[in-house]
């Protein structure tokens, strides 16, 4: 894109952001008379607004730190499938979330299916 066009789009986008939403369309109609593609470019940028906050809203350092912490936690999370806890034989993992992992297990005493929830160490340490 040539620099002149870039500046034009950026400037109109900035102005459009600063005026009330219900007046934007009229503003753009007027400002982009005879240049339909210019209006489309700006409208596309305006349409990103809600999601744009998600993209850069959390500082990169924090995003990376969370990812690293998640990796560590995954490594620490033991896999109980195939093992027994007391008289419960764990058969499969059903689900997992921030508060722990849920397993399907067999109660070998009462001969019935149960669900067992394993809490992450962090939750146990700080109830």
């Amino acid at each position: 894109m040539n620099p002149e066009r870039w500046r034009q789009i950026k400037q109109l986008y900035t102005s459009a952001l600063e005026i009330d939403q219900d007046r934007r369309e009229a503003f753009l109609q007027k400002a982009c008379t005879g240049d339909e593609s210019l209006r489309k470019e700006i409208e596309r940028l305006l349409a990103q607004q809600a999601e744009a906050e998600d993209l850069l809203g959390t500082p990169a350092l924090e995003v990376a730190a969370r990812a690293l912490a998640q990796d560590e936690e995954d490594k620490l999370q033991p896999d109980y499938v195939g093992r027994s806890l007391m008289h419960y034989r764990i058969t499969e993992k059903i689900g997992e979330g921030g508060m722990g992992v849920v397993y399907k297990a067999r109660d070998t005493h009462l001969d019935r299916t149960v669900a067992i929830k394993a809490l992450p160490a962090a939750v146990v340490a700080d109830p």
Partner: protein
Amino acid sequence: MVRERPGHTLQTTALVNEAYLRLIDADRVEWKDRVHFFAISANVMRRILVEFARARGSQKRGGSAVKVDFDEAMFPSLGRDQVMIALDDALNELTEIDPREAKVVELRFFGGLSEKETAEVVGVTDRTVRQDWNHANAWLTDELKRGAQR
């Protein structure tokens, strides 16, 4: 409420330490002033975090599904690491077109600087930083979406 994982804080410290070590190592750099320091720090942090995303991405390749929470709704086909890498690429592109706007993103997103601090480093008004930031957010989001569709 999302429970903050204790590991999260530890990892932040580790990442900051890594950046600090690299800055100390950069003994060929002659610091002009603290503004210069922040500008370099943000760039170092950007490189560390992007390298980190690439390393994680290659570790996971072929493994289980990539964890997505950076922006699941927006880029369903991309994981957190890929978003970071795509963002870095798009930012390089932005540097070609509008170097100041790209700098504003680097300082704020990777350097963690406030609007005011960024204005000081770049040498423009707070308002200009805000305008660059708003435009960059929209433009980058659009770029990443288009990239994800390609």
